[in-house]
């Protein structure tokens, strides 16, 4: 006892110190598991989808092409992130990885709900801007816990979303192909070079 205050045992203080170090490191680390090569693969899917969708004959066919692209791209992104995170020895579900996901996933979920509502209303022309704005917002929010280059990617995609909103009914596939295709490829290469694959 020291002045009536119980002094914690040595091993308790050691455990406290370890916890303190772990917390500080988790809080400080930026999420570097954003996959560069995975981003390039997703970008290629985006370009292929934009090309195919621009030749579709019906709105439902157009929607189907983009939904298939999303269904193919999502597991690629998830597996690429998981593999890169494992290489660096951390997980997507703790520390900076969790902060990244907390920023990224809600915007995607919002985009999915908006898609459902817009399709129900039959106003397919709004979809390109809704998708780009939701995805761009997610990337921007995730960027706060990740590498700074994502801020530029998120901003670029949001600008394309704004352009798509200003030109509703025209060039939808151009905006989508540029955002989900070209920008993903360019930034994927930058991330792969600067942030280890």
């Amino acid at each position, binding site marked *: 006892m*020291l002045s009536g205050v119980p*002094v*914690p*045992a*040595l*091993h308790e*203080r*050691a*455990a406290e*110190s*370890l916890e*303190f*170090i772990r917390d*500080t*490191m*988790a*809080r*400080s*680390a*930026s999420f570097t598991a954003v996959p560069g090569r995975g981003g390039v693969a997703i970008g290629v899917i985006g370009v292929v989808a934009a090309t195919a969708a621009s030749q579709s004959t019906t709105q439902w066919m157009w929607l189907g092409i983009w939904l298939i692209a999303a269904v193919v791209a999502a597991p690629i992104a998830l597996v690429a992130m998981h593999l890169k995170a494992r290489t660096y020895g951390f997980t997507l579900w703790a520390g900076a990885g969790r902060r990244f996901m907390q920023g990224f996933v809600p915007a995607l979920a919002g985009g999915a709900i908006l898609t459902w509502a817009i399709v129900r209303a039959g106003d397919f022309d709004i979809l390109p801007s809704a998708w780009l704005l939701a995805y761009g917002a997610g990337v921007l929010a995730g960027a706060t816990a990740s590498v700074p280059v994502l801020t530029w990617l998120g901003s670029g995609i949001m600008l394309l979303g704004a352009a798509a909103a200003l030109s509703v009914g025209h060039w939808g596939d151009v905006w989508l192909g540029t955002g989900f295709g070209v920008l993903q490829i360019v930034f994927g290469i930058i991330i792969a070079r600067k942030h280890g694959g």
Partner: protein
Amino acid sequence: MAARQNTARKRDQIPARTVARPAPHAPRPSALDRLIHDRTRLAIVSALAANATLSFTELKALIGLSDGNLSVHARKLEEAGYLTCLKAFEGRMPKTEFKLTEAGHRALRQYLDHMEAIIRHARSKTRA
């Protein structure tokens, strides 16, 4: 903030002899690296261990320190060779970047080993 830091500092400065006396083969508290045992400096070293470099502003925001406090603690770590401080200009704005040196990484690893050894020793004593 300052009061909390003072409390933390006082707690860290409790002499080792006031803590439960360790068994003869337990890791000795006196062998601790006192420089990074201080909570503020431990936070600086831990944050830098998780990042290649951190700017003065980033580090200050992460740890929640005043400019003066961060400068004082960073200087102590720099003098010990645990971190390097790179001053440069970004356009016209001065920018200070901190980086943990190999000695700093080694000191943190040794500190972690020391803490783990204390916990292992306490567990083995409990089992016995």
